[in-house]
């Protein structure tokens, strides 16, 4: 290992990449216990450094979780995956502090997401129930302040607490989209998706059947990855022009949508404003063309607005 080369340490619990220079120390940590192999990481990575490791399903049960692996030679420690990871399994460190370089340099947005608690509206009888109900155990009781606190860094915004607390908790999820379960298309007796679902949106109902509570879904798509009925895809080229260069990228789209028991669609994501090609490219891969186009459209709209402002009487319709 020469100075500044990336060193990878892999255990069952985590993958750590370290890049130590004398004046800069980059570190990326993938918490494999949180990782659900949802594919968002591999889709986000601009250098294809992250690969999907498929899970193993036996007799309708998940016996090995899907996961991810990292190529230390490709990772450039940009931190995009850390921003997008739906289960907060990835952390980017710079010189011993948690820091995402792409966000620091405003080349990537912060996702708009939150979990707020209004203690006054809460039925404190339900305290223990709400705490136990959280799938990620991020809610705890602060003895001093006598209130419930949320570990914001690890909360995955599943809204279980929102329902359990009758609205005393308010959750904003970053992703918008749809999830649909077609039970009749399932492999008989298979509950693998419920095994991987981090939010219990997919669960075994009281009648013993697989059920979907779509309100909790965070659109991570991990269920599709473990489902024994695999999505088949075709690649198609999308061509776009950016900064004088015409790029052709291979994208994938599902061709057997009608056969799939579980389908997750990501439409758009809430984020802080940003001007960045890297963000547009990540979006185009994460949310098929739609979100990317929305992003491009938003920029166009801003430009149109500038144009309109220059017109006489613009104030009439641009008041608000």
């Amino acid at each position: 290992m020469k100075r500044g080369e990336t060193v990878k340490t892999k255990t069952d619990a985590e993958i750590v990449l370290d890049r130590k220079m004398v004046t800069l120390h980059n570190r990326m940590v993938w918490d494999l216990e949180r990782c659900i192999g949802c594919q968002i990481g591999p889709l986000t990575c601009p250098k294809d450094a992250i690969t999907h490791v498929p899970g193993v399903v036996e007799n309708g049960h998940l016996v090995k979780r899907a996961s991810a692996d990292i190529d230390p030679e490709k990772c450039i420690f940009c931190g995009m995956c850390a921003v997008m990871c739906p289960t907060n399994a990835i952390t980017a460190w710079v010189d011993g502090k948690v820091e995402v370089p792409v966000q620091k340099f405003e080349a990537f947005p912060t996702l708009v997401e939150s979990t707020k608690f209004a203690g006054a509206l809460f039925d404190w009888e339900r305290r223990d129930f709400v705490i136990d109900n959280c799938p990620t155990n991020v809610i705890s009781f602060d003895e001093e302040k006598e209130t419930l606190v949320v570990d914001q860094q690890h909360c995955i915004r599943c809204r279980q607490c929102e329902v359990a607390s009758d609205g005393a908790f308010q959750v904003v999820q970053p992703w918008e989209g749809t999830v649909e379960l077609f039970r009749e298309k399932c492999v008989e007796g298979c509950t693998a998706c419920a095994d991987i679902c981090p939010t219990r949106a997919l669960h075994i109902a009281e009648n013993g059947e697989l059920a979907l509570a779509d309100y909790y879904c965070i659109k991570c798509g991990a269920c599709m990855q473990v489902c024994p009925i695999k999505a088949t895809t075709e690649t198609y080229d999308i061509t776009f022009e950016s900064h004088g260069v015409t790029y052709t990228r291979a994208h994938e789209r599902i061709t057997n949508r009608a056969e799939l028991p579980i389908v997750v669609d990501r439409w758009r994501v809430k984020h802080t404003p940003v001007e960045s090609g890297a963000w547009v490219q990540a979006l185009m891969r994460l949310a098929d063309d739609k979100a990317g186009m929305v992003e491009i459209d938003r920029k166009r709209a801003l430009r149109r607005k500038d144009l309109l402002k220059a017109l006489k009487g613009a104030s009439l319709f641009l008041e608000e």
Partner: protein
Amino acid sequence: MAEIKEKGNGHGRETEDLRIGVYVCHCGSNIASVVTPSEVVEYAKTLPGVVIAKEHRYMCSDPGQALIQQDIKEFGLNRVVVAACSVAMHEPTFRACISDAGLNPFMFEMANIREHSSWVHSHEKAAATHKAKEIVASAVAKVSYVRPLDMFEVPVTRRAMIIGGGIAGISAALDLADMKIDTYLVEKTPTIGGRMAQLDKTFPTMDCSICIEAPKMVDVGKNPYIHLLTYSEVKEVSGYIGNFKVKVERKPRYVSLDKCTGCGLCEEVCPISVPNEFEEGLGPRKAIYVPMAQAVPSIYTIDMDACIRCYKCVEACGSLSAIDFAQEPEIVELDIGAIIVATGYDTWNPEAIEEYGFGVYENVTTMMEIERLHCAGGPTVGEFVRPSDGKVPETLALIQCVGSRDKRYHEYCSGFCCMYTIKNAMLLKWLYPEMDITIFRIDIRTPGKTYEEFYERAREAGIHFIQGRPSEIIEDPATKNLTVHAENIATGQHVALEVEMVGLANAAIPSDGAVDLGRVLTVPNDTHGWFLESHPKLKPLDTPTEGIYLAGSAQGPKDIPASVAQGSGAAGRASRVLNAGTWEIDPIVAYVDPERCINSKGGKCTICAQACPYGAVINLPGTGEASRIVPAKCHGCGTCVAECPQNAITQHHFTDGQIVAQIHALLADEPETKVLAFICRWCSGMGADNAGVSHFEYPANTRNILVMCAGRVDRDFVMEAFRLGAGAVLVSGCHPQDCHYIEGRNHAEDRMEKLAGQLEKLGISPGRFRVESVSATEGAKWARIMRDLNEVIQDLGVAAIEAENEAARPQLTKRLRRMREVPEVDYLLRLVESAPLRDLPSQTQRAFDAGIGKKVVQEPCATVPAEADACKACAIAEACETLGAATKGGA
């Protein structure tokens, strides 16, 4: 040896015309202590055509040369043989010598009795003398058939190219520019400056390295005669001295050279940091970067491996719009007259030495890292800290000869490490007087001016020196301190020294890609990968390829003054050519006898065109026109000559007749006991010379015939050798990647592999015919091959060899019948067989008149405009250009 004469074995063409002088050199005692010169002289006098034979202590000295010149006048000599050293050493000397006395310089032959005899058979003096006699006989046989040739003049493009923008390349470029020579400086990284730019201070004067180099870099950037091609690599080189065609790939910087002002706003907004190669990975650079503040040109480059295309830089650059993501690699084609290779060195990765723990123990560093750590321009702004905790170490050990002078890795001494280690120790002592510094050394080598005094100052400054190469370094995992274990040779005691940080003086190695570049340039690399000079003493800046020169560490590790001096020296060597206007090259090109070429009778043969590595053959199959060779494009390897099934092609100065005469001369006496080797004069010839210089002994029953390239070795030569009874035959050329004629030796290998099968069928034991590759540095390999072949002969025994040859002879004779189609060979064989020469002299003369002995001139193109399409098809267009208007005009 009287019987040779009686048999009339191949000596002499038109004996009455020959007036040959033979001069045997003692070379002090180099030759005379083994070979008895007087015996060789007496023997030479008996050879046909020899009118005088003399010996001298130093033939190459003024009196020695004067002796030859005087004899030429006094005895009317028309040919001269000097029995001395190798062609590489003194052929040019004696050619010039006889030329001054009025003879054509090609009426000369060198007999190498030093490298090929006295130096390698010192324990068999009688056999060495006998061998020397036969080498002289071979040279006399060849010189009997040589013809006068005029040097061939080519135009010179007055434009230089320097590959590598370190201090050697910079020095060469500035000198050439001073002579107002357009100079292209090609550098593969984004900036010039090279290794010197990375150094903090320089020994022994302690002046700041970049402070003295940066002004020179700026001069290069501003000089109107210097054209910088940074972030570029040489991909293809064709042509020859004065007329190279070079293809350079300019890698995309994604930043416009014209628009970028080097303001650095882009760098500030770039989110991606990666290790900076210039800082040895100690600190980061951005994905858009200049390697260092003093970079020339001061233009940013985007590292696409790190770029995430966020376009923040585009935003920051704003209206300058210097960033251009649309850039693509671009190939620039240049006409160049001379090339200087100044590719410098890389540092070796000492991870291989596991016991030192580099790459495992954080505080084990390389010397270049130490350099960057105490440099004020470095990542720590000059604060010398250890990597594990960023603290200034109180104790430091520096270890010498890490990977150099170590048979496991690099045998050679890297030269400058003693001095820069001492320099780093001195600098740190200045910066941190309390720091305890120990240098572990084998020897301290201080050969430069005031270097020894510098070493003395270091000792006075309190730097400790321990003689002993450390055996192991062990890290304390808690403190990250290191214990260096060594044997102190002075006291014989084991030393276990605990220090906070260790610096390794790791070996210098040829820069990455040097061997590949060698292939592109057809310049050989030595076994370590350093570029090989033409002669280690007298042509240290030249390469075996004319018009290509070496400067700086590309040739072997060098410090700054030596690199600067070599840069200037190489500029001088190159300007010799560039300022000459025209350049003379050897007229040893190939020539087609149009009457014998089958295409002149409507044939559709393309063999010569396929064999030519340079596209020098104008081949018009089916048109009724004989093939022709463009002299300016022909490099004189002779591959087409050997390939031509009609024996219609001849190479000047290496004709079939000359070579067959040599075969006959060398195999006249006891052929069954001999090893006859056909060797190219580059790698294998220099390899054989290297065996001589290194005094690697091998049996004296070995004889060599030198050709330009193994590609010239005709199947007929090998068969003729066996027909004459040879014990073993070797054909040896360069290694495939080193061939001086691109692929001449590959043609030879294909040809000889087929022949080997045929010979085996004829009953020749497989070990008796061998094809080998020997490089110019593989003297040991050459000696081993010679011993092996001798063993084959010993194991079989003369009787068995005779029997095999006897059985094969009828078939060999049958197959060799066509060799006589060459009039010169027929003439020679008739002489040998004492057959009537009826009519032959005139026929030979006719052949010579038709071109074999004709001067090489630039003939006008014979192709009439109506056939211009065919002309283009055979790729003459390019050659026509180099030949100038006379040819272009054509008919």
